[in-house]
């Protein structure tokens, strides 16, 4: 029911700011109307439970009136509270209308008194709390604690899957690696051709192909591949007209030389035709 009191207020008053020009000297130090009301109530020097809300409302209104007379600016929430208290006062003084809606004036007054009591109680509690011995102010913990060395014992884990996967990956890697090495032992056609071309530049005269190959074959197991590739490369060079090959009879040594330049008339027409 008492919620009516709050809905009457348009908004909660903001806390006071120190030195904020909008607030007058008289209300400085009060944290809003409720705080001021509590201070005024204390002046009645009676138990808050027995406080006269009517008298309190008068005091508050007088305070506000005095402030306005000396043209002091008051924050809006003080004025809102003043208006509400004036309303409450009139309700308290006038006889209750027979069909009153909402809370009675008495209930509203009680609710206000209750709020003041709550605020005062929590202030008292706050004071008592802050007056307790406080850590690092009144009482102190050990200033120079000893470190507790931690000896960690790792406990390793692994799954069977990890183990098998690790095994499989490694074994396959080695297999792949050896396949790769085998490939390298093959003397590629391109390699053979490049070597031959280099040799051809030097061999103006007939040279034995197998003799030349000996320069390149370090590993005897590579002899076959080197020989085959070089022969194929030589045939290709012959076809391109770079090299001449000569063999006396089957299985006899193969000779090769750079092809002598062709007579000029032969080349010219082909060049024109091309």
């Amino acid at each position, binding site marked *: 029911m*008492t*919620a009516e*009191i*709050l809905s009457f207020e348009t908004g*909660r*008053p*903001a*806390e*006071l*700011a*120190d*030195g*904020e020009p909008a607030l007058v000297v008289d209300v400085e130090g009060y*944290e*809003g*109307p*409720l*705080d001021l009301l509590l201070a005024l109530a204390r002046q009645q020097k009676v138990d808050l439970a027995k406080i006269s809300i009517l008298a309190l409302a008068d005091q508050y209104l007088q305070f506000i009136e005095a402030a306005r007379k000396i043209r002091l600016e008051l924050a809006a929430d003080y004025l809102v509270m003043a208006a509400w208290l004036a309303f409450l006062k009139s309700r308290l003084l006038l006889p209750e209308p027979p069909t009153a809606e909402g809370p009675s004036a008495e209930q509203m007054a009680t*609710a206000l008194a*209750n*709020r003041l*009591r*709550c*605020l005062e*109680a*929590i*202030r*008292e*509690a*706050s004071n*008592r*709390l*802050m007056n*307790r*011995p*406080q*850590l*690092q*102010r*009144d*009482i*102190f*913990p*050990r*200033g120079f*604690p*000893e*470190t*507790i060395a931690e000896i960690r014992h790792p406990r390793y884990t692994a799954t069977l899957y990890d183990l098998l996967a690790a095994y499989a990956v490694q074994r396959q890697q080695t297999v792949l690696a050896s396949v790769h090495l085998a490939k390298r032992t093959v003397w590629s056609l391109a390699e053979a051709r490049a070597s031959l071309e280099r040799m051809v530049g030097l061999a103006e005269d007939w040279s034995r192909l197998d003799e030349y190959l000996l320069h390149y074959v370090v590993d005897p197991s590579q002899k076959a591949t080197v020989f085959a590739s070089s022969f194929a490369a030589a045939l290709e060079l012959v076809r391109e007209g770079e090299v001449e090959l000569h063999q006396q009879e089957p299985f006899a040594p193969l000779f090769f030389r750079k092809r002598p330049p062709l007579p000029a008339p032969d080349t010219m027409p082909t060049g024109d035709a091309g």
Partner: protein
Amino acid sequence: MASLAEKRMVDAEQADNNPRTRPEELRLLEALLFASTEPLDQATLAKRMPDGVDIKAALTQLQEDYAPRGVNLVRIANKWTFRTAGDLSWLMTRESTETRRLSRAATEMLAIIAYHQPVTRAEIEEIRGVVTSKGTLDVLLETGWIRPRGRRKTPGRPLTFGTTEAFLSQFSLEALSDLPGLEELKGTGLLDTRLPTGFTVPTPSDDPTLREDEDPLEAGDLELVLAPRVEPETGSEGE
């Protein structure tokens, strides 16, 4: 005052009753508690102590042993730690590392959180009759004495606040039930009173278990609360 010589005699007598061989469990316990930076709970102590030691009895004995000393064994939130005796604060001032003085607004807010927890910011403002600046809340959160603990199951799902173990430690409270004046407050019904908005706070509790009207915090809630202030500093609560 008793002279030192007299004291020595008393000590000597005690030594006779209690031969220098101090029970090993007390030696172990005091060593552990002295060395630690953090208060230790019984379970942690038990783990470090030999099996079969009645930790509880040993702690009680130790607390008694140290009661007349300049260093006392205290219990905070069910954890044990040594602290300098409260009555020696006058001597210790120089040790004090300039503790931040909280503004009146902040101390009131802290008290409301302590006595009414779990409590929302709107409820705090209801009691104080003023709007709380975000700065005040930030200052309190920074102390580590309060924490957002959940969300109230009401429209807007506001955060609820409560106190932490650091709060108990700061004010030398064994438990929240040791809050000064709590019994009187409960007696006068001020904590039971249905406050204007109609919420009830029967007994403050820092039990991390959420109340029926609380939802758990969500991911990001803490970041939200602890986010850098976006509101301009109002300075309205000059410290």
